[in-house]
């Protein structure tokens, strides 16, 4: 690797340094825009006791769900889980911890974490189980709770196009949490469908500037659909 070239030669290299007990922030919503090959590499690598900050935990056999098979996940910080049987089994058996976090708060935790803001006040969750034990402040007659931001030891994201400098562009709603996740890793690893040369992406159209990305790899993707809904025509 030289200068600003972030491209690595293998998935093993992309996740070098990921160790047991670390916190990983993952982009994706449902199975849309998930870094599927990086997840597969974590499974291959066998890293354990991981905390994942991700909106969902995949499904049985795909996405983060595959990491449940060998009990590699200790804790999930998510807004919506339970699309897989294995998840519920491990949760009920006390083998897996889950911290349910409102979706917008989860996104903001990543955004703030990446932006150097350690905590923020939000009205979301005030007066609900989410607000229990959290500091409450009143601003202009409304109640807000203090939420702490997150920074991951690693962040793993998936983009459509990326150049060697790590500049990323996402495609359609596969963007979702990926831009926030990309900012919030001590080491951010991006996998892309298309690797292009610097200068090929229009600078003002770049979603994630390369400064946030430490490692980049091109992969091929299954892009499984969770709810296939079509109309006639």
């Amino acid at each position, binding site marked *: 690797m030289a200068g600003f070239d972030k491209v690595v030669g293998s998935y093993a290299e992309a996740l070098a340094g990921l160790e047991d007990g670390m916190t990983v922030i993952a982009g994706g919503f449902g199975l849309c825009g998930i870094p599927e090959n990086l997840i597969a590499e974590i499974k291959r690598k066998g890293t354990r006791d991981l905390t994942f900050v991700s909106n969902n935990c995949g499904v049985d056999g795909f996405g983060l769900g595959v990491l449940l098979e060998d009990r590699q996940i200790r804790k999930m910080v998510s807004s919506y889980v339970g699309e897989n049987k294995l998840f519920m089994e491990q949760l009920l058996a006390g083998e897996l911890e889950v911290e349910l976090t409102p979706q917008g*708060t989860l*996104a*903001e935790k990543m955004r703030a974490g990446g932006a150097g803001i350690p905590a923020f006040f939000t009205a979301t969750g005030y007066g609900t189980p989410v607000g229990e034990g959290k500091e409450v402040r009143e601003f202009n007659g409304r109640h807000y709770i203090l939420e702490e931001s997150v920074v991951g030891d690693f962040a793993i994201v998936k983009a459509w196009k990326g150049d060697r400098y790590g500049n990323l562009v996402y495609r359609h709603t*596969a963007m979702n949490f*990926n831009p926030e996740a990309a900012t919030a890793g001590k080491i951010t690893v991006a996998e892309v469908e298309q690797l292009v040369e610097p200068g090929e992406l229009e600078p003002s159209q770049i979603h994630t500037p390369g400064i946030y990305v430490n490692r980049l790899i091109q992969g091929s993707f299954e892009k499984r659909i969770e709810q296939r809904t079509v109309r006639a025509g």
Partner: protein
Amino acid sequence: MALSREQMAQRVARELQDGFYVNLGIGIPTLVANYVPPGIEVMLQSENGLLGMGPFPTEAELDPDMINAGKQTVTAISGASIFSSAESFAMIRGGHVDLTVLGAFEVDVAGNIASYMVPGKLVKGMGGAMDLVAGADNIIVTMTHASKHGESKLLERCTLPLTGVACIKRVVTDLAYLEVADGRFWLRERAPGVSVDDIVRLTAGELVVPETVPEMTF
């Protein structure tokens, strides 16, 4: 006759106004999109990061990178925009969405809503519901008036864990259209053929019944 799911959606759709940005939750709220009154334009926001959601794709249009908050494949209308999750919830939390329609298990006279969790049952999570009710000034809840066992869902105080406090001002049930104000429910309209007595009997929270309660027409 109690309203069908489609009629509930139709009733909610009458609250749409030209130029509204609207977030529709899963279930009956999703059906509201089918009943946008003629002559007005609304734009649907899907909290995974899409403003300007269109219909389901045709087989040829199907794209795994194009989904809605229910994880269903969708299309984007001409003039749509797509953005990140933080941006999406900035819109929601910041009060930029004009109307939010969502389902619930319970609503009480203080405008509290319980919609995401039944203790003892599997808990899947709140998704974006807590952000939506915290951020929107204009929320309509759609739900059946009572459970299958005849227990009212319109309560003096919610019994289930809350999704949000003091945020619900309007409810469309299969029996009635009600407003929530001053710590009471106000009966505004009744479903065709449903008597005020039926509604009173199935409303556990304090209910104000005006002298005339017009019947909805479809």
